[in-house]
């Protein structure tokens, strides 16, 4: 694996399977009475969050703590960042404190790349969501969840060869969609992005995916369907006429869910707008693996931190 995890595209098929298999082993830890391994004892993981995201931060925090790492949560709000400190100075400060890994969430696309490439920190940089760019650990947990449901025997050692995954919603602004498109392609799945034309990026025709403007035609072949959160502020920017029209054309309700194959699962990266992109009936149905995604998220993030900063490889390299 590369030193940093900035993009789902950084992972080879072998890297990705290694992360997923490691996560499968670590998932067991959560079922134990004592949910802790000594693997990252003495290592420092900094959660550097420039954007509010309680879900992702506590997931990374739980992951690091279950590996016995020291965790520093650095939230931009109420910190020196809100007083105008630059990313560079923040990074230099963390470097001086000896961060082994920096988990960064940022409202600007590419901020983790800057942190990793500009030489401001020696630690491994993990992208925990940057602007409208990528969210690679989300894609890993989604792939993990799909693999455990769709591949024989829980999928350990396997990829997602030949599985059809439909991702629906605001692809243009979605870091989840970008990372999933890259990772699922690497793992051999067939990805279909479904959205109104206004919410597909220019150049999507060159991505390794199919695209469709019609949700209904994409249902019957789907092994997994992922509904993306639609930000309500998009409505004021004329991406679609009204919430109701969006919901009618691109929302997943019971009628549509019933047209999915029997084995198909429903995913959502959260937080959901119930009644907008997904109805409550669907979200709470037996098809929904949304809560399981959260559980798997901790295991996948444990695996990423373990492989980037914990393994024997690092010590052998003396880093």
């Amino acid at each position, binding site marked *: 694996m590369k030193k940093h995890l900035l993009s789902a595209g950084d992972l080879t098929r072998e890297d990705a399977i290694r992360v997923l298999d490691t996560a499968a082993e670590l998932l067991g830890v959560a079922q134990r009475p004592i949910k802790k391994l000594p693997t990252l004892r003495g290592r420092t993981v900094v959660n550097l969050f420039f954007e509010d995201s309680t879900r992702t931060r506590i997931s990374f925090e739980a992951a690091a703590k279950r590996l016995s790492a020291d965790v520093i949560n650095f939230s931009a709000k109420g910190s020196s960042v809100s007083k105008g400190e630059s990313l560079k100075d923040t990074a230099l400060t963390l470097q001086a404190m000896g961060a082994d890994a920096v988990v960064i969430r940022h409202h600007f696309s590419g901020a983790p790349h*800057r942190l990793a490439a500009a030489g401001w920190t020696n630690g491994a940089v993990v992208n925990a969501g940057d*602007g409208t760019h990528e969210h690679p650990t989300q894609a890993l947990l989604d792939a993990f969840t799909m693999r455990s449901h769709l591949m024989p025997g829980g999928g350990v050692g396997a990829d997602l060869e030949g599985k059809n995954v439909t991702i629906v919603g605001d692809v243009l602004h979605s870091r989840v969609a*970008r990372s999933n498109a890259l990772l699922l392609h690497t793992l051999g799945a067939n990805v279909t992005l479904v959205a109104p034309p206004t919410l597909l990026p220019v*150049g999507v025709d060159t991505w390794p995916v199919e695209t469709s403007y019609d949700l209904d035609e994409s249902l019957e072949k789907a092994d997994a369907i992922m509904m993306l959160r639609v930000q309500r502020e998009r409505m004021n920017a004329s991406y679609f006429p009204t919430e109701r029209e969006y919901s009618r054309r691109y929302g997943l309700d019971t009628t549509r869910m019933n047209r999915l194959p029997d084995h198909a699962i429903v995913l959502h990266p959260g937080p959901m707008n119930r009644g907008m992109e997904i109805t409550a009936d669907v979200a709470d149905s037996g098809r929904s693996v949304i809560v399981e995604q959260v559980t798997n998220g901790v295991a996948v993030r444990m695996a990423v931190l373990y492989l980037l900063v914990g393994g024997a490889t690092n010590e052998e390299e003396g880093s």
Partner: protein
Amino acid sequence: MSEQYLIRNARILGGEPTDIAIADGVITAIGADLDLNGAIEVDATGLVALPGLVDLHTHLREPGREDAETVLTGTQAAARGGFTCVHAMANTDPVADTAGVVEQVWRLGREAGFCDVQPIGAVTVGLGGTQLAELGAMADSAADVRVFSDDGKCVSDAVLMRRALEYVKAFDGVVAQHAQEPRLTEGAQMNEGLVSGELGLTGWPAAAEEAIVARDCVLAAHVGSRLHVCHLSTRGSVEIVRWAKSKGWDVTAEVTPHHLLLTDDLVRGYDPIYKVNPPLRTADDVEAVREGLADGTIDIVATDHAPHPMEDKECEWSAAAFGMIGLETALSVVQHTMVDTGLLTWAQVAERMSAAPAHISRVGGGHGRPIAVGEAAHVVLYDDQATRTITPADTASLSRNTPYAGRELPGRVVATFLRGVPTVLDGQLQEVRS
């Protein structure tokens, strides 16, 4: 009374070697084996002699952002790039929208003495896009302004643009438009295309430039005025300007050196050194602007030299400032992209980097004139056989935001003469008496 110089064996416009005699700021003789008693000899064997370059689009940042550039440092950088005249853009603080500010900038240029500074006046008060600035007062001022631009912002209001185009006819002015439809580019960070889609950066579509270029060409034709299109960057814009010229309309256009060379692929590392407005476009656009510059659709090369302090580039892409410096690399980039590729001769380079920009701005002072007996001695000596690796610190500018760091580029300015006074000799800035 300036000193006398005898330039030996210079290849004027890349032609056969000849001598050039300069006295009292004027070219007094051209020919083989000249004699000039008491003259300082400058050996120009192997060097190309070009008329002093004229930049129609320079950000000198003074007044207001003297941390990024001053008139002195900016004109020193210009001299090192072979320029004898630069046009200072109006987006200073305060904005150059009154006779007072343009006269201040003009006077600072005279005091610096490295390069003539011709101020550009704002079209609208405070670049606000709502009320015409006192264009006539700036034209009548000591700064003698003929070019008006809200550069950095587009005069997007069609009525206001029409009025500006009409109004400047009274003093043979020209409106230089920064063509950017504002609604289509809200929050825009880079060219809209394959790369922006992958990187998740808000796109700046070519259509936002082309829509304004097309509208302004039609408006200029309707009112019979002169339009200049700043830093044109897309294939579509080239085609629209070509069409407008085919109609006989009085439309001119410029391209920057960086749009002749760099593409939006460079954005992939999110290094804001490549963040610029208009954004770096695609390889197809680069090909189109080179063709346009070669066939004369694009009249001139202008640098859009845009200095920024380090901290405005050492940050996240979306937080960074737009712009790159370019005065000291412009001629090298033009050689690399246009001359070494066979698209332009040195005579055509002189047209596009000296004569045409001087004509568009109606600037006096003997700028844009050929190297000929009786003309003001604005001369550049350029070693087109040299190569150099660009290092950001090797600049007279206060800023370091060059996109060419580490790149090997051909050519080197050896000497620049402004009215017979060397501002640069042996590649080094000279003491200049202003």
